[in-house]
């Protein structure tokens, strides 16, 4: 037993020395055991964020030890949030993946505490919300689909990878709102929850759900294979590359931007020095070609926001999502 304790201390000591030798605190990304918590089961978007960024950090030598990815699924991130705010508030080893989906939960008061309980590090990219149908669907444009909903809100079976009131559902409701559908009718929509975009789309191919609202990245392969049609992307402008021919919702007259950004937070009592070091490390990942490549492959648009700017962005977004959820009647 003495040996283990010794081994750990030795390792920590050596890392400490290494940090001293470099004499630039900014180059030591985090503590000796860098850990990224993915608040989902393996395979999901948060898991992907942690694993990709963790891999790049090691490749770019931002960290000395491999980044350990821990999966802490539960209540769409609330379990991880509770764990970090409760027990690991000042742990400078730790950064946690999150996204707009997590913020929606905070906005709807489903997390223990508000956004100010943690420190928001940075966002590195954003996934784009899309409305999907089968290639042989009766709907050719967003207008077709929203008209059908307008004339009979129960006539289309919709689904996605979030539960009722979650971000996939909320984006769809936003579109419907822009199409002039009354709030009372929004409640009548038929929404089926799936465990992810992939399962939702395969169920759509089987004809069990007609329209799917979800993020592009996970299901990009189906679009490229020509099995499904994207009615519209909820991005500010058209996407690049093979998705350039897909019209945005905005250009079809429904001004909704539904980006699911990917980023990280850390404990609320992490010191400024460590916070800045983490942001700097993430910036190096963001600037690398490896991240550009990974983002391109998975349909993310690289977008960088960090530090105070990112914290303001998060706070604004939560306010916005909260008032929307109240308006639609998801929370009181």
């Amino acid at each position: 037993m003495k040996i283990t304790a010794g081994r750990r201390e030795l390792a920590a000591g050596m890392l400490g020395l290494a940090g001293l030798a470099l004499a630039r605190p900014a180059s030591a990304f985090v503590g000796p055991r860098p850990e990224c918590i993915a608040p989902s089961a393996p395979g999901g978007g948060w898991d992907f964020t942690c694993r990709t960024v963790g891999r790049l950090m090691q490749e770019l030598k931002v960290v000395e030890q491999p980044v350990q990815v821990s999966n802490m699924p539960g209540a769409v991130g609330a379990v991880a949030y509770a764990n970090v705010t409760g027990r690991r508030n000042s742990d400078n080893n730790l950064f946690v993946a999150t996204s707009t989906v997590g913020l929606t939960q905070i906005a709807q008061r489903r997390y223990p505490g508000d956004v100010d309980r943690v420190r928001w590090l940075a966002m590195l990219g954003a996934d784009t919300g899309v409305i999907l149908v089968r290639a042989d669907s009766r709907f050719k444009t967003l207008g077709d689909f929203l008209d059908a909903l307008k004339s009979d809100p129960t006539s289309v079976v919709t689904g996605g990878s979030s539960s009722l009131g979650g971000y996939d559902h909320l984006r769809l409701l936003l579109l419907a709102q822009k199409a002039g559908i009354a709030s009372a009718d929004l409640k009548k929509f038929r929404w089926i929850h799936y465990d992810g975009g992939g399962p939702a789309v395969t169920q759509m191919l089987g004809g069990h759900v007609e329209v799917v609202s979800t993020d592009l990245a996970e299901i990009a392969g189906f679009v490229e294979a020509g099995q499904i049609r994207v009615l519209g992307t909820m991005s500010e402008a058209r996407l690049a590359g093979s998705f350039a021919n897909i019209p945005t919702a905005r250009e079809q007259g429904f001004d909704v931007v539904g980006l699911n950004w990917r980023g990280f937070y850390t404990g609320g009592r992490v010191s400024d020095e460590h916070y800045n070091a983490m942001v700097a490390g993430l910036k190096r990942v963001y600037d690398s070609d490896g991240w550009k490549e990974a983002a391109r492959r998975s349909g993310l648009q690289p977008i960088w926001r960090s530090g105070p700017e990112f914290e303001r962005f998060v706070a604004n977004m939560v306010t916005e999502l909260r008032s929307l959820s109240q308006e639609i009647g998801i929370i009181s």
Partner: protein
Amino acid sequence: MDIIPSLANGFAVAAQPMNLLVAFIGCFVGTVIGALPGIGPVNGIAILIPLAFSLDLSPVSALILLTSVYYGSMFGGRIASILLNIPGDSSAVVTCIDGFPMAKKGRAADALAISAISSFFGGTLATVGLTVLAPSLAMAAIHFGPREYFALYVMAIIIVGGIATGNPAKTLVAGLLGLVIGTVGIDPATGIPRFTFGAYELYEGIDFVIVAIGLFAISEFLIYIEQRRTGPVEQVPVGRRTTALRRLTYPATSLRASLLGFVIGVLPGAGATLASFMGYALEKRVSDKENTFGKGDPRGVAAPEAADNAAAGGSLVPMLTLGVPGSGTTAIMLGMLVTLNVQPGPLLFQQQPDIVWGLVAALYVSNIILLILNIPLVGIFAKLLSVPPHYLMPGVVTVSFLGVYSVNQNSFDLLMMVGFGVFGYLLRKMSIPLVPVVLGIILGTPMEQSLRRALAASGGDVWTLFQSPLALGLHAVTAIIVAIAILRESRRRIGEAAATRGA
């Protein structure tokens, strides 16, 4: 694309010395990890990922490492089931029913050998299926919608009743209690926490590992204390295999169970657990002529083992071709693939054929390595039972605590495990079987979700459940199963009544 040349290329990749070595390491580590209760492929993969990166393995080699760990832990999972009556993972629950009685009779080595052989059979058959049918099967699986899944789960729950022996009312109680425990946690469809009483530890539901280890391992300990009341407990005789390997293969059983397991494995979400006990139930219906199942019938070990490994292979079909994980473990593999810049999905077979066929070939190779590795290990594992019980049993309790602790690292889970241990002890005393409880927990959530999805799509119209030929067919099979069970039961009652009158 022709299968034969592609596969030949795949074998050329898999047979490279580096990849063979990687497969061997993966199989060995997987077996050991699978043997520890509560520690599963997740941990195995987590341990080996840094290794894969630090050795700078190519994507194919890394994939081979992962799949061999995956298969290896499927092989290893039943070791604790057979020797200690603790299911190491959810698909090994059913193996306890006949595996542990076999070990108690001194046939532990036989049972382990049977499980290795039939696992090999199931795994290989599934790999053949994967090779030949993958793309077309994946497209067939999408016809399974919420209604069809619901029908499948109803059938599964009904079949649970047929697995256990004893009072059918108590079997049903056990299954229902399992479903009830499964409703604890956040409701995935609406995000509302149910039966959590504000405890965040319960939000994700009660982990299967906690319930299974508590119910089986801790209650076993309490039962053991009590058994000493009726005199010293006999040490289980540990032998070598009592019969030749040839006589421990059950080709007909393995074939039936493998086919069923593969089909179930291909359906995303149904998974190896469902396959293992459907395989067992099928075998019990077909072969249990002398009422030996549940008392250490070797076919009761062979069937779930073959089915469960076949399903593990089958669940790779939706993962590779649709990018939809068929089980928890394939979800991890999916995450790994993405990290390695391999994007599973409809285009994978066209875009990255080297990787796919290398992987398929590696599956064949891993299966063979596992068989070769496991047969000699059987004797060593069985030796575990020769440790005196007053050392062995506390050791098992320690490992059980660790298995549970590794899930979430908190003492709340440990307390729950002890609670379930006491609960399991009471159930056993009341002769309420434990296996249906565990299966109820596993099947509860998917069953509820498929029902809710079907009804959400129809706007609450219940008839939708029967408005699909496939679902209707499944319900019809369920009805036939129930009818046969009722008929048999009443015939048995009449027979018994006649016997008492005659006596």
